């Protein structure tokens, strides 16, 4: 079994940043216990990746929304490609060299930057070389193609998971077979066996976690909002990196209890809540600290993020683990974004705006993400019917050359002024 060929320096650096965040959190008298757990999970995740080579463990790189529950059940070390890219921008602010290396791989600046950066990172050995590359069509055609390039760069074998856009009994059967084939591929490549009991246990935890996500969403309806302004990124990361992990259940239970207490005490996350916002798509990762600060300065909270927090209906069945993994992919909040945007998805956005009593919505239009940018007008029109203004911020999720902090500040301040003016 082979693993990393070169020092995974970015993972080490992310690990150091997370340890520092953890120390700072522990030292703060008002620190949330859930935040401490969150950083502990990130540290565990990065430590696994950083030490995989020494421990002779099998590393699988996988794209976003890939069901990593299956990897955990097989004792494979997952490396979530997009989140690893985001964390590099979020914690280290170092991304230019990775994008430049991506450009050398032939990826132009119009292409989705996490993919560009990821290809660059693997090509210069800034991330561990995976033993296998797993990718799917669950987000966009770009993702569907990026796995082939990652295989070429790393020289690792790969598996493409084909998930049908629509959900019917036949399509579910097809997808379950795809998952079965993937398990067989991983077993052949890693020499490890699927532990079906462990997968069942993971699914049981996942089901509990989805229920906790829903409870947290209900608590977040409260005015003032009990959750910190950009807190949803924690929720997103927990599902992306730790699905079905017992510690993720503990984190969500702790967060739920903290929010419930805040709601009971009528305690808001920002000193004076003035603006309740809906966040559409992903804000620039390199500006998260700034956005959090600005939100507190202006009393602006992201009350809801329908594409990241609104889970679909249904429960998972530990007795049918693989079927449940397939079913979860259709329950994911982000599944609204896959394929053509439906009237139902747009209706849910409007419903969320009403339920969370939002004053306005911010659409982070990642210029490299064509299929999300194409929906700007759909959302703007739908929300304007219920008199919710939408601010579009052209940006890139990790590339700071597209939008500066100053530009974003200017746009947000102007938008807050508009919200004031409408009162």
């Amino acid at each position: 079994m082979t693993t990393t060929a070169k020092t995974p320096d970015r993972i080490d650096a992310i690990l150091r940043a997370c340890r520092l965040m953890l120390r700072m959190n522990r030292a703060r008298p008002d620190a949330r216990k859930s935040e401490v757990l969150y950083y502990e999970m990130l540290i565990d995740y990065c430590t696994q990746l950083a030490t995989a080579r020494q421990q002779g463990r099998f590393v699988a790189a996988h794209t976003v929304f890939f069901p990593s529950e299956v990897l955990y059940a097989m004792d494979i070390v997952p490396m979530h490609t997009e989140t690893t890219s985001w964390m590099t921008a979020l914690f280290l602010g170092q991304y230019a060299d990775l994008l430049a290396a991506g450009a050398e791989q032939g990826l132009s600046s119009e292409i989705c930057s996490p993919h560009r950066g990821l290809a660059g990172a693997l090509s210069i050995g800034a991330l561990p070389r995976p033993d296998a590359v797993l990718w799917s069509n669950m987000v966009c055609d770009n993702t569907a193609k990026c796995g082939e390039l990652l295989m070429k760069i790393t020289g690792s074998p790969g598996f493409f998971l084909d998930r049908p856009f629509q959900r019917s009994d036949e399509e579910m059967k097809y997808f379950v077979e795809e998952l079965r084939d993937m398990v067989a591929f991983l077993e052949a490549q890693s020499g490890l066996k699927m532990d079906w009991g462990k997968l069942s246990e993971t699914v049981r935890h996942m089901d509990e976690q989805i229920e906790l996500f829903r409870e947290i969403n209900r608590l977040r309806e409260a005015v003032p909002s009990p959750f910190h302004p950009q807190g949803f990124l924690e929720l997103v990361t927990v599902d992306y990196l730790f699905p079905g992990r017992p510690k993720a259940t503990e984190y969500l239970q702790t967060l739920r209890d903290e929010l419930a207490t805040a709601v009971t005490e009528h305690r808001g996350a920002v000193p004076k809540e003035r603006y309740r916002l809906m966040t559409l798509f992903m804000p620039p990762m390199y500006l998260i600290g700034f956005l959090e600060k600005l939100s507190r300065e202006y009393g602006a909270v992201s009350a809801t993020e329908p594409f990241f927090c609104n889970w679909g209906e249904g429960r998972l069945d530990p007795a049918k683990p693989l079927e449940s993994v397939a079913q979860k992919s259709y329950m994911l909040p982000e599944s609204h974004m896959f394929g053509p945007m439906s009237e139902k998805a747009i209706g849910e956005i409007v419903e969320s705006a009403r339920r969370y009593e939002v004053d306005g919505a911010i659409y982070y239009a990642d210029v490299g993400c064509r299929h999300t940018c194409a929906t700007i007008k759909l959302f703007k029109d739908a929300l304007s019917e219920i008199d919710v203004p939408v601010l579009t911020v052209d940006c890139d999720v990790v590339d700071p050359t597209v939008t500066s902090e100053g530009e974003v500040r200017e746009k947000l301040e102007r938008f807050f002024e508009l919200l004031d003016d409408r009162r």
Partner: protein
Amino acid sequence: MRAVGLDIGSLSTKAVVMGGDGILSSAVVLSSDSAESSAKAALQQAMAKASQDGEIYVVSTGAGGKSVSFSRQNKAITTCLARGIHYLLPEARTVIDMGAESITVVRINERGRVSDYGNQDKCAAGTGIFLQQMAKLLRLSMEEMAVVSTKAKARAEITGTCAVFAESEVISHIHRDPPTPVEDIVAGIYISMVHRIMSQLQRVGVKKEVAVTGGVAANRGLVSILEEEIGHTVLIPPTPELAGAIGAALIAKENMIQGAS
């Protein structure tokens, strides 16, 4: 105390002095490197015209609005345009501001408040500076361009997406054999700008009446093509470049009244 509105744009700085009965005076000066000194120059001119030298309450707006030390409040240009146009043309519900470096579309409600807005400030294409560049290239004044455009029999194809490419295209039209008639080139430049404006307009949504402000609004040739594309006539206030400064002065006046009560 007098209410003063200052709109510090990238090409020109506008000042409006307002009294109890309305606008007392206004001034427009070329913007210098320093927003502060441009603001002072415009203010001095406007105050002199109004024969005023007493205490003032200043609200600033525009690209350099935040850099004016003697301004009591800085407001977004969208807010000021909405107030200004509501004062000048109360029936207007959409404002297209064609400034030197940006195009801003503001939809306003019946109270003169912003309902929605959109602006493009990432590229010079479609802006006043772009138009200036094109005039220089064709060796025409802006006024001459407007007149020439009315004689066009066709519209030369010119990209609306990039100012640099548009310039190359204009040069190629001038040098082709036979050369594209200058009036067709001008009409082509205007339509490329109008397409740019229309895309912003469609994003925000058109609601009648539509008013046009900013220095470029004085260009009749461009405005008539814009009217064709929108499908109806647009309203242009008597001093379209002052709409933002008037809005700022109105806000200054409101603040003074609120402060006094």
